[in-house]
């Protein structure tokens, strides 16, 4: 049985999440989605697979301090999976004030949910008029940008070009992975938001983060990204030690990270990605012949000390 893809829609109040949801549901794609919403009545589409969620965030009693999950999602998905061949995908709409981490972690931590579903992507809708203000005053708005795989910069008809460029630059400094799409009324092709495979390890290989210099972080903001790069092969034991310590000590601050690594003695590319303390890694395809084997590791988080991270990563170079 193939795992059912799950798409999470986040965004601050009024940004246009419900517009996007209605758009996805009304497109003639022939797919059937189960929809988990936080408020009934906003969805204009007749769909008997709409379920109201209670947003119950639980701490996992497993010794991992930042490991919170959505208990209601475990319950609802367990119930939905009892239906036979009823749907092709699950859409989860979170409240405007929700932190996406517990939603994402639910799909890695719960054995029943992780066996039957897979996280496909996190889509964040941002109101171009108000995003700058939100990023200044809202912790949750920052998290929503930091966690996103795709960001719809919505309502661009209400902002001038210069304003949009500034916003895109600021988003890029916080989250170099995410694809940014400018939209009006969330008008976007369905394949830009569904079927992303953003949590698949082999998609990490396609990572083309916008690398930034130090001076690009002109905003005094708490969520930043750090891009690490190394042309010399790494020592697997040294990297393992450094990385484990990092996620133990700073897991709460690390929101998302992705890396493609070259280890001494291996011709394969090692890929790592994760959310807080939940990391996933694997050895993928062989490095292409004739190209430099450059390790790249990009971290998004709060209170990231770029200098210390660079020094720690550089110390993993194989002797």
């Amino acid at each position, binding site marked *: 049985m193939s795992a059912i893809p799950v798409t999470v829609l986040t965004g601050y109040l009024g940004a246009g999440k419900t517009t996007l949801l209605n758009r996805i549901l009304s497109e003639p794609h022939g797919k059937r989605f189960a929809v988990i919403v936080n408020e009934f009545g906003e969805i204009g589409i007749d769909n008997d697979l709409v379920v109201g969620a209670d947003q119950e965030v639980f701490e996992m009693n497993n010794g991992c301090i930042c490991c919170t999950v959505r208990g209601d999602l475990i319950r609802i998905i367990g*119930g939905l999976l009892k239906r036979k061949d009823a749907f092709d995908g699950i859409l989860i709409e979170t409240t405007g004030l929700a932190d996406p981490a517990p939603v994402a972690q639910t799909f890695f931590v719960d054995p029943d949910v992780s066996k039957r579903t897979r996280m496909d992507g996190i889509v964040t809708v941002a109101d171009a008029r108000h995003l700058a203000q939100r990023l200044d005053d809202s912790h949750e708005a920052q998290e929503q940008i930091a966690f996103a795989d795709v960001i719809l910069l919505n309502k661009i008809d209400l902002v001038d070009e210069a304003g949009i460029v500034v916003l895109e630059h600021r988003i890029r400094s916080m989250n170099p992975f995410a694809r940014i799409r400018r939209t009006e009324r969330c008008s976007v092709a369905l394949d830009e938001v569904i079927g992303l495979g953003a949590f698949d390890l082999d998609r990490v290989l396609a990572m083309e983060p916008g690398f930034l210099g130090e001076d690009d972080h002109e905003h005094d903001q708490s969520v930043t990204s750090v891009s690490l790069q190394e042309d010399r092969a790494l020592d697997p034991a040294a990297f393992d030690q450094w990385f484990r310590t990092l996620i133990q000590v700073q897991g709460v601050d690390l929101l998302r990270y992705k890396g493609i690594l070259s280890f001494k003695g291996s011709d394969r590319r090692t890929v790592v990605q994760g959310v807080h303390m939940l990391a996933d890694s694997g050895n993928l395809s062989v490095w292409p012949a004739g190209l430099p084997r450059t390790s790249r590791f990009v971290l998004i988080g709060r209170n990231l000390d770029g200098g210390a991270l660079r020094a720690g990563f550089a110390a993993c170079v194989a002797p």
Partner: protein
Amino acid sequence: MNGSEGGTRLHPLERHMDAAAYVVSVKVNRAGSHAAAVLGDGAAWLIDLTDSSAAPAVVHAHDGACLALARDIDGNGFLTGGDDGKLRRIAPGQAAETLAEVKGRWIEHVDCCPRSRLRAYSAGRQVHLLDLSGHGSAPALDHPSTVGSLAFAPNGKRLAVAHYGGASLWWTGRPGPPSRLDWKGSHLGVLWHPDGTHLMTTLQESGLHGWRLRDKADMQMSGYATKVRSMGWTNRSRYLATGGAESVVCWPFFGGGPWQKQPLQLAGTAGGLITVVAPHPKEPVIAAGHDDGRLLIAPTDGTAPVAIAAPDGSPISALAWSDDGRHLLAGTEAGRLSWFPIPAGR
């Protein structure tokens, strides 16, 4: 299948049916005349255990999926809860009736108690009680989080409700706040000791918790491979049998146990997982359903288990005995529904 090996003999009338949808739960009514299986497609199948030639009666119970099944207060009927927010009663030869509806909610847990003549069902954080006539007999009972499970005490005087952070014990005969049994974590299942002396819960974080009610002494049972989704008492309540591991883990409740005692481990297969357990009500044997569809009958004396259903790849999702132990019903996620009559006088 013939039962020349082992103590449990199966009847040649053993039947396998294709229900073609996830078997959510199966139960035998209190009279022992019919079994009900509720399915992920909203149907309930009623099987006449007195007539092996009769086709099952298929009742449309819910729009969507059935989520819960309980034996009603009387000998004949069953109550079902569904993701259409309805609580329904189904009974052989009678039209299905809707007893309650909670708009926009799922009815996920249902229990009934012949002693107190009450029915209880949960929708979200609330539990509602209904009397025999179908009237709500009390204001809704509120909980700090969504209800994980509920069960009446054997004497009917109390109702236990599992939720995040522990369980609440309500008096069914009088209003008033519940007493709380606190334990960190998300509590998903609840089971009373048949003597009403202990309360057990299953936890999200792979394990069990329990309380001896006289002094609220805690019990923690851990070491499971995954979430424990099934537990039951063996005959004379000697062991608490549980799923969630490679073998059936049975915690002794005698001789000072379960504290400081090692559990029995029965009917294991390497690399497999026990999904559902159903101890026989009268004999010291346990029906154990595996995640590959295999079904074993394991004696608690440790002698070799007998396979009564071969693996077909789909996990066993439901198991139930009749009260007299003469019928075993089993269902799988893929919709295989099996009925094993057990002859008398073994």
